[in-house]
């Protein structure tokens, strides 16, 4: 018994630390909910959305993108210009940039970060973006030193504030890739790249240059950050942020209603919106995102009716997408007919598939010689919206003679079924790039081309699309590509959902970016909270 009491007492001590001070009352403190704890605060190695969101509080971006147009904007790089050779970009850093330990942030830090990403031992997600840099591939393959040292022929530090990056060939989306942060060379140059993923100085972000600095990271509890007085865009107005990890969505809503949270980001349930909006203390914010839901069609199975384009076209006619958006998503989404999203500059509002009817679909099936067959449709269990899409699809398909078997699978099993091709149809989501370049999913060699889609003409046009800079021309090309892809009916596009945020009405200046929750977080403020709550 005494032992047990000691354990309890000890736990308290551990948790409580030594101080028991009162909370400071005259500071603006923001409480934000997150569904999951970040795994790392190291943005170059983060592999999950939660870690990337959290890291955005602590790290500045080299370049940003405009939330409405997705055009590249200055961040740490104050200016960027393409030289006459159409291959070399000259980047100039802002003057007077500082790491939080007082060391100047210079072009050497940027060069170090680029070396690190291109290094053969780097196992993060950014390398595919840098392989367009001249010499990056050679540097990666040689792996001369275990440290991020040496030289990449295409990267040259000109002076403290200037760096030049030369590409192998013109690559229009390249600037939009440089939205990652630099890491402090003076802290990390003596760390082996293979050991950097779990390195303590990155885990605890002892040195940063982002809008906020880390005060405490309590795993599975919260991230506590304090405004960085030296942030290059200006000291944030909100003094402290608690980013609380609350896996239970109901608890998030209750805490918001009770005034203990100020912001539920991104994933407010569509059915909760009305109730929350009715509360005068709460305001609802929405923004478009670069994600969409679709039904993947497995064409790899020998003898499957899905190999026939007419069958796939018939399947694409079955669902009334307007109805999905109105009734399932309560209007918080936009119908999608092709791979370009409304946020892309190449998006074509006029483009739509002709609304098919059930008799037309039936006709196509008969033409294809598949009057009746069975299909296996999978989705990840727990996703109510997708479950309803599956049920509607099954109902419609039955009317044209297709028997759809629905399987709700646990996430890992769902992924395994996708990887092994153990499905005919699968409902899932996917994210798109800020640039309309569709190569990742639709080029026959694209790394994200899981369905094995291959169309020579599309490949050629995609290659042309990244090799010109003129926006008009690129727009034209991507619209053409979209038409070609849609004509092949490789997948069924459904809708692109909006991010829905519920915030305390006090929160001012909050305007989420399609790719980042904490966009311009330094401009946020809490009206009327100066006196403390």
């Amino acid at each position, binding site marked *: 018994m005494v032992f047990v009491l000691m354990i309890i007492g000890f736990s308290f001590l551990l948790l*409580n630390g030594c101080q028991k001070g009162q909370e400071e009352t005259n500071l603006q403190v923001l409480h934000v909910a997150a569904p999951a704890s970040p795994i790392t605060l190291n943005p170059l190695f983060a592999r999950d959305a939660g870690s990337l969101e959290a890291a955005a509080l602590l790290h500045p971006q080299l370049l940003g993108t405009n939330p409405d147009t997705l055009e590249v904007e200055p961040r740490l790089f104050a200016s960027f210009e393409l030289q006459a050779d159409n291959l070399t970009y000259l980047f100039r850093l802002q003057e007077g940039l500082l790491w939080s330990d007082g060391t100047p942030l210079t072009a050497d830090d940027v060069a170090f970060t680029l070396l690190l990403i291109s290094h053969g031992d780097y196992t993060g997600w950014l390398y595919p973006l840098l392989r367009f840099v001249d010499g990056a591939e050679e540097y990666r393959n040689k792996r001369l030193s275990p440290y991020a040292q040496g030289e990449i022929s295409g990267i040259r530090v000109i002076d403290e504030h200037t760096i030049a990056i030369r590409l192998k060939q013109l690559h229009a989306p390249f600037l939009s890739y440089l939205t990652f942060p630099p890491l402090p060379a003076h802290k990390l140059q003596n760390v082996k790249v293979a050991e950097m993923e779990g390195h303590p100085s990155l885990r605890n972000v002892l040195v940063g240059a982002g809008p906020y600095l880390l005060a405490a990271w309590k795993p599975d509890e919260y991230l506590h950050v304090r405004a960085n007085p030296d942030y290059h865009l200006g000291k944030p107005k909100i003094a402290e942020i608690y980013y609380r990890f609350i896996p239970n969505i109901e608890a998030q809503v209750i805490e918001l209603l009770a005034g*203990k949270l100020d912001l539920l980001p991104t994933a407010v349930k569509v059915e909760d919106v009305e109730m929350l909006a009715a509360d005068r203390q709460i305001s609802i914010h929405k923004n478009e995102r670069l994600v969409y839901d679709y039904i993947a069609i497995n064409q790899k199975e020998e003898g499957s009716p899905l190999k026939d384009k007419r069958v796939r076209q018939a399947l694409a006619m079955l669902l009334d997408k307007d109805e999905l958006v109105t009734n399932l998503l309560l209007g918080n989404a936009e119908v999608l007919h092709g791979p370009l999203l409304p946020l892309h500059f190449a998006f074509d509002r006029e483009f739509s598939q002709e609304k098919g009817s059930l008799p037309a679909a039936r006709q196509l099936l008969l033409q294809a010689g598949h009057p009746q067959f069975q299909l296996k449709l999978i989705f990840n269990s727990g996703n109510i919206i997708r479950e309803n899409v599956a049920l509607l699809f099954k109902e419609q398909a039955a009317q044209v003679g297709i028997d759809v078997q629905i399987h709700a699978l646990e996430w890992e099993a769902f992924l395994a079924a996708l990887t092994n091709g153990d499905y005919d149809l699968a409902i899932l989501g996917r994210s798109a790039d800020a640039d309309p370049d569709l190569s990742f999913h639709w080029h026959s060699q694209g790394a994200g081309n899981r369905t094995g889609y291959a169309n020579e003409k599309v490949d050629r046009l995609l290659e042309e699309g990244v090799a010109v800079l003129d926006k008009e021309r690129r727009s034209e090309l991507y619209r053409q590509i979209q038409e070609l892809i849609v004509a092949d009916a490789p997948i069924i596009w459904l809708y692109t959902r909006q991010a829905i945020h519920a915030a305390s009405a006090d929160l001012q200046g909050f305007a989420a970016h399609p790719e980042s929750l904490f966009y311009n977080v330094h401009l946020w403020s809490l009206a009327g909270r100066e006196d403390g709550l």
Partner: protein
Amino acid sequence: MIRLLLNRLWQTAIVLFGVSVITFIIMHSAPGHPLQANPELRLDPTAVERWLELRELDEPLPAQYIGWLSRMFRGDFGKSLIYNRPVPELALERLPATLLLTVPAFLLALGLAISCGTWAALRQGGFVDRLLGLATLAGLSLPSFWLGIILMMLFSYGYPWLPASGMRTAENSSVSDILAHLVLPVTMLVAGSFSYYVRYVRYTVLAVLSQDFIRIARARGFTELYIVFRHVLPNASLPIVTVAALSLPQLFTGALVAEYVFSWPGIGRWIVTSTLARDYPVIMAVNLSAAALVAFSNFLADLLFLLIDPRLRFKA
């Protein structure tokens, strides 16, 4: 006595070895590896290869197992594949929060169960007994997550007295702040385990009460209180100790449902996310420690038996 001990140790070693082999096989035959969890992640295939290579996950399974075993014997539990930190460090980080939740809940449930169960048995068929019967039935049949949500709706939203999530407001929270955060999850845990213990207590106390020596004690005119504390409880304690000892491992492995419902930063959530993410070293270490704890609690129960019951000591 020493032979008994050695025997136990030997058996435990075999069990632990078996557990490690089976865990290893099951884990590696489950689909996926940690880098496959996010299909949208744009990792370069060479990066994935290098990642597996750096963590020796590209070797054949038997070699991986032997590597793991030899490191184990040197006291190295390995590094989490996801967090890239030593597994014991991650576990210790979460242990205080876990114990803070499970130990008070366990003590409260057991204490309440012993007092209520004894009372109910002494007044069998009385009002308290019948009320308790109803309450335990409810406690056992209501899903605990549902109870948790109802508690939250009532006391965090309807009457916003208590926080609905987390363990504290900030790093420098006061003890009362942490206690306020504890109330709802502990209540939820107690409701479940109390109903489970109290039936045992009532049943065993009833069994003791029906024995001859109690009747004799009553005939000799001892007070009821004296009989209960001197004769009934010591005799009823054996089965209760067994049940309690077998609950010990759960104190350390956490209370997953309560941790999820109330966003408590305990070990249970970590175990589940690690399993879903195929964090092999964590799963191995956790399963092995859990098995060791079960073996240890059994052993502890045996020792307590010897302590409580002189007859067993004599036989041993």
